């Protein structure tokens, strides 16, 4: 479904991604692991058209999307749920959700579906997003991404700074995405958690893929874990 081929990304003169190749099969959850500053968020931004690769191709459903703008990429069903949630703080929960379907037609059906998934948001539709708790904001961020009817969801550190119970809840939701034909690229600091839900994992360090392996093999391989994942 998605294939990165030798993607390079620069911030000005600083190179952050150095020829990254990666593949996400249809209907799978792929984890992207790596230390702080490895370039994980940068890779997601390159896929979603926020940053333009200086070299390489990004093929989605057989089409090179690496030169498209973010609006065109969202319309194709590649939705990026960013690190740090990035809700619209001064807009209501309802408005935040509706913005998620900006490029879609009638949002009503999807809206009901999202409220069904994240019941906690239901009673807060009229509340400003900036006044939600961290966990609620993360639910809103994911719900807003779902409003865009993703076929591929790019999730950047959904567990960051959240209580274990909320993390568990959010990952239960993520584990059901494949039933709706949503593939996931999951960035996580918490490798144990990510490997529990992923089918396949890539490890990124200093802008390069160090290895990729089936998640269940990686789970059991103490050597690799201690060497790369801490």
């Amino acid at each position: 479904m998605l294939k990165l081929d030798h993607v390079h990304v620069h911030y000005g003169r600083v190179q952050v991604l150095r020829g990254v190749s990666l593949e996400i099969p249809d209907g799978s959850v792929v984890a992207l692991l790596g230390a702080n500053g490895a370039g994980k968020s940068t890779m997601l931004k390159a896929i979603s058209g926020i940053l333009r690769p200086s070299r390489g191709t990004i093929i989605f459903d057989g089409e090179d999307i690496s030169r498209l703008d973010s609006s065109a990429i969202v319309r194709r069903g590649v939705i990026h749920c960013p690190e740090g949630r990035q809700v619209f703080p001064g807009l209501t929960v309802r408005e935040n959700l509706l913005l998620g379907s900006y490029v879609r037609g009638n949002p009503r059906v999807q809206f009901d579906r999202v409220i069904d998934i994240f019941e906690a948001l239901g009673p807060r539709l009229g509340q400003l997003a900036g006044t939600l708790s961290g966990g609620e904001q993360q639910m809103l961020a994911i719900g807003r991404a779902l409003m865009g009817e993703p076929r591929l969801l790019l999730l950047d550190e959904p567990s960051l700074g959240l209580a274990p119970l909320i993390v568990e809840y959010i990952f239960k939701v993520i584990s059901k995405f494949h039933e709706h034909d949503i593939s996931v690229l999951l960035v996580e600091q918490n490798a144990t958690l990510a490997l529990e839900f992923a089918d396949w994992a890539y490890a990124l360090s200093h802008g390069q893929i160090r290895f990729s392996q089936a998640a269940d093999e990686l789970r059991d391989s103490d050597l690799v874990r201690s060497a790369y994942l801490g």
Partner: protein
Amino acid sequence: MTQYLLQISLAGLAQGSLYALTALGLVVIYNASTVVNFAHGAMGMAATYVAYVLISQLHVPVPLAFVGAIAAAFILGAVVQALLLERLNGAPILTQVVVTLGLFMFLEGVLGLAFGYNPRPMAPPIAIAPVTVAGLVLRPQDIVQLALLVALGVALAALFGATKLGLGMRAITENTYAARLMGIPVGRVLGTAWGLGVLLAAVAAILAAPTTSVTPNMMDTIVVYGFIAAILGGFGSLVGAVVGGLILGVIVNMIDAFLAPELAMSIVFGLLVLVLYVRPDGLFGRKAVQKV
């Protein structure tokens, strides 16, 4: 005496509606792009020249000429955003502000070169004699100005409150990065916001033209009052811009009538400082919503 005060206030509200329209345009542009548009008045003035040329040189019917000028204003705003500001996206705000200052001088200079600095007359669009109601003289021009302010204010409220485009503009104001992630075509939406903002300046300028005449600097005073009105209202609030503009119009008219027109600007600035001292966010400024 009360009759006289009422009369002055009424004329003040009419004059204030021009400040309010100017301020609304400034706020629409600022909210979307965080750029303070110092070329605002000049862009409205340029659109007035379009109307002037259409009417007195090409003999286009007046209503049609106004529509043409308003459309030209919209395009001018969108083009300036796309050609100048889109390029400067991410540049320090000061750079963008300097660009709008440069554009201000460029427009006044170019239109001065093309048409000279002699004021050119523009007939009021409606040539009806004033009517007297309950002892108050109502000038049709004043009524038109106030009615247009109300109509455009309601239209803006509907745009921001009830349309996808308006919601998109507010999203860009809140968090441009997240707006891009939603697939909002940020450049196009900003272009539309600039187009609308300059359109509002053009409406103000065209309404002012019968009084000020058409000159390259016809908007210089009005746009300063527009800025003050926007700041009074909290630079960001649409309601604030309207209320600020109307209050300012009444105050300026009172100063003109009871003191001296030369004092108006200094007294107004004094009042502005006073208001900001008491309420640093203006009359309707929201405290910036806590960032997450």
